[in-house]
Structures are given as structure tokens and as C-alpha cells.
């Protein structure tokens, strides 16, 4: 049964990818991309990678099609036929790269083999001892936030950099270096009564669900990344329905910009705290007397940092995009 479902899902994935290449029109591509995301999430669930599936669900269902839609609103929705391009060269390049990748997979151990290097190195220790060493039932969270905290710090900084880059690219001339809105309210002659009333009911629950995901990452799927995305989705939904000025009154742009840096700062300071006590960077054992308790506190604090950064960067990106197309019309 599982094998059959896997085969069907994977062939659907390949079909979607092929359709993505063939289809013309950017809105159609966005919709196919979102279908691709949904399919990968189902696939991850079947492979038991619940945390990855959760991230894919949160990003693929809401935020990523939305950001793509916003960029399409800025650039127009028809794909230009590029006259000067040489598809032959591109096909050759892609073909060679693909062939090299396939040759690379030949050396890999068969899927699910017990003696694959990935299962022999540190994985057994994570699986057997992480519960004792960190006191956290969800192995993914303890690996992500404790054993591999350096990598996660890197990821958070990448996200922060993306936010900074979007501000730098989309900032307008009059308000340099910032995505702060300076446009008139959107036209309200066509009110979205149904959407507004339903969203009014849903938004508080979306935000609370984000907090739930943030704080229950120790026990089930979830954590800072997913929570940040869900929180930002709630805020962006409000912004879409009530206009940019309204959402900027609720959460002021300078505050969000500050928060996106604050999250990284919280993460980094936690690491430096342990250095000050003579321990390695990001060794949480100094945070409390009991080492397990210390691990739990450390993981919770850095997950909070991750959540704050992810949520604020997404909101900053939304502000920058929305600002762009709401002013372009005037």
C-alpha cells in the first residue's frame, strides 16, 4: 500500500514538474508550484519526515504562492519570449549537469540500507541518547537546535540576509533603505465583507496556532521556522484584506525591522553567554545547574529567536512588495 502511494505521488510530482516547464503564463506556473509543494508535503508525511512536511505545508500552502503572486503583480503576468536566448546551450548544460548528478547517485548506498554511512556515523547516538542528553522527545528538534545549532544559526542568518536584500532591492528612492509604506489607502469601493468577517474569526486562531507550534516543537512536529511562517501568514492575510496602512498601524514597520535583527541577536547572545563562562559557543550547559534543564532552556530560547526572525523577515518582505505595487498604481 505504502509503496503504491509512494509511486503514485512521485509520478504526480514528475508530471507537475513537466507541466511547470511546458506551461506559459506566470500565474499558471505559480499554481503548479503550489501543487508541487502540496505533493512534496504529502510525500514527506509518508516518508515519516514530519517536521519537514510541516515546514513544506506552512510555506507551500500559504506564503510562497503569495509572495510569488505579489512579485507577479509587480512585474506583470506574461512570460516574455526571449529572442536572444540559445536554448541549445542551456539544454546541453542542464543535460550534462543532470547526467553528472545521476552518476553521483550510483555511488550512493541503496535507499533504506542499514549500513549506509548516514546511519553509522552520528545518527545512532542522536537516536539513542538525545532523549537522555537533552530531555526532549522530538529528536529532530534536539538535533536541529542543540547538536547542530551552528547550522541552524547559519540558516537563520541566511533568512535575515534575504530580508535585508529584499529591502535594499525594493526600497524606493524617497525612503531609502526602508520598506515603510507611504501610499494612500487602497480603494475601498468594493468591500470584501465575506472575506473580512471570516478572516476576523480565523486570524486570532492562526496566530495562536503559531504560538502553539513554537512552544510544542519539543514534543511534536514544529518549531521556530514553522511558527514564524504561520504567524506571518496571519498578519499578511490581515494586510491583504484591510490594506497596507491598516496592517502598518497594527505592527509598525520599524518594529518589524528591529525584530528581524533581534531574533538573530537572541540566538547569537545565547552562544556568547556560554563562551563567557569558558565553554564552547552555543554550549547550553551554563544556562542552569542541571544540564538537561539547561539544554531545554537553551533550545527554547534559540527556537524563539528563530521564530522571531522568520516571522519578521516574511512580514518585512510583504511590506516591501505591497508597498511596491500599491504605489506603482498612482
Amino acid at each position, binding site marked *: 500500500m505504502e509503496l503504491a502511494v509512494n509511486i503514485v505521488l512521485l509520478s504526480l510530482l514528475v508530471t507537475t514538474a513537466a507541466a511547470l516547464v511546458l506551461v506559459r503564463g506566470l500565474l499558471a506556473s505559480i499554481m503548479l508550484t503550489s501543487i508541487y509543494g502540496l505533493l512534496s508535503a504529502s510525500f514527506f508525511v509518508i516518508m515519516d519526515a514530519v517536521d519537514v512536511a510541516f515546514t513544506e505545508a506552512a510555506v507551500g500552502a500559504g506564503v510562497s504562492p503569495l509572495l510569488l503572486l505579489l512579485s507577479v503583480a509587480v512585474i506583470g503576468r506574461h512570460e516574455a519570449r526571449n529572442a536572444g536566448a540559445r536554448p541549445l546551450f542551456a539544454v546541453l548544460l542542464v543535460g550534462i549537469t543532470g547526467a553528472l548528478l545521476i552518476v553521483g547517485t550510483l555511488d550512493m548506498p541503496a535507499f533504506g540500507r542499514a549500513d549506509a554511512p548516514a546511519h553509522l556515523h552520528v545518527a545512532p547516538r542522536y537516536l539513542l541518547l538525545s532523549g537522555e542528553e537533552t530531555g526532549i522527545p522530538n529528536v529532530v528538534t534536539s538535533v536541529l537546535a542543540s547538536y547542530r545549532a551552528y547550522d541552524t544559526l547559519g540558516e537563520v542568518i541566511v533568512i535575515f540576509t534575504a530580508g535585508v536584500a529584499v529591502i535594499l532591492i525594493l526600497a524606493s528612492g524617497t525612503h531609502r533603505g526602508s520598506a515603510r509604506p507611504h501610499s494612500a489607502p487602497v480603494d475601498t469601493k468594493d468591500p470584501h465583507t465575506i472575506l473580512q*468577517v471570516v478572516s*476576523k474569526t480565523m*486570524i*486570532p486562531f492562526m*496566530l495562536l496556532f503559531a504560538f502553539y507550534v513554537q512552544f510544542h516543537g519539543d514534543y511534536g512536529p514544529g518549531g521556530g521556522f514553522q511558527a514564524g511562517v504561520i504567524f506571518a501568514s496571519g498578519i499578511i492575510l490581515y494586510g491583504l484584506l484591510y490594506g497596507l496602512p491598516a496592517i502598518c498601524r497594527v505592527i509598525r514597520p520599524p518594529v518589524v525591522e528591529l525584530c528581524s535583527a533581534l531574533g538573530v541577536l537572541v540566538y547569537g547572545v545565547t552562544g556568547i553567554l556560554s563562551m563567557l563562562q569558558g565553554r564552547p559557543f552555543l554550549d547550553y550547559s551554563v544556562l542552569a545547574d542541571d544540564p538537561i534543564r539547561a539544554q531545554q532552556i537553551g533550545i527554547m530560547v534559540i527556537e524563539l529567536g528563530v521564530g522571531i526572525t522568520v516571522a519578521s523577515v516574511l512580514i518585512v518582505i510583504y511590506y516591501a512588495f505591497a508597498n511596491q505595487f500599491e504605489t506603482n498604481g498612482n
Partner: protein
Amino acid sequence: MRYTFGLVLALSVFWLINSGHYDALLLSLGVISVGAVTLIALRMDVVDQESIPLHLLRRIPFYLLWLGVQICRSNLDLVRRVWLPGQRSTPRIARLPLPQYSDICRVVYANSINLTPGTLTVELAPDHLLVHTLSAEGLAALEEGEMSRRVSELEQ
């Protein structure tokens, strides 16, 4: 004030159902989270009688029961239409009057129309609805106005 209290109550129930862990740390985090969300909701100005329709609570169970029966009936109709292609269906698009006074009732009415397959609200203007129906009978049933009357009664 009533609505804020209602929102806090609903959010707390939502947290407790989802959480499943009832130790001191997570409960206090829950209190903080509910507080923060309530604060944001108040700043967003989404806490009012539209999002927390306390005044409808007393009558809405009966309405939902009636709506459930309607949904099942129109589903059967649509199943027939899909599997028996010989049936002539005559789609219609029309305006319906909106006697309801409050936005919440208009939204309940429009969304009830959307929930029953075969009828669909295209636009909700202040004084009328634009609906698309899959068949002339569906439009006739809406124009007869039983659903509209029942929604209006919710507020009394």
C-alpha cells in the same frame, strides 16, 4: 468587553485542546500566548460582534441543523446531475434582495448559499447578492426565501 472575554475563552480552549501537555511551563506559556494574541487582535480591531457572534449562539444550533439537511439534499441533486448526463441543467445568474441588516447575517446568508452545492454567491453588495445557480430550480428555491428568512430570524 464581552467580546474580549469571549475571544480569550475561545483561544484558551483552542490552546488546551491542541496542547495535550498540562505542565506548569507549557500552561504559563499558554497564558502568555493567549494574552499576546488577544493584544494583537485588539490592535487589529477584529474583536467585535462580527468575529465573536455571541448574540447568535442561542439560535444558531437549530439553524445549522436545518442547513445540514439542505446541504445533504442539494448534494444528492448534484450527484444525480454529475452521474446522469442526460439531465438538462439550466444555469442561471441573478440578483437576490438582502433584507438582513447586519454584516454578520449577510455573511451567514452568503456563506450558507456557498455551502450548499449548486448555488454560489458571486458578489455581496450592500443591498443585493449576485448568485450563480446550476439549475433554475435552485434559483427558484433561493428566491422563495426560506433560507433568507431563517437567517434573519437568527438575530431576533
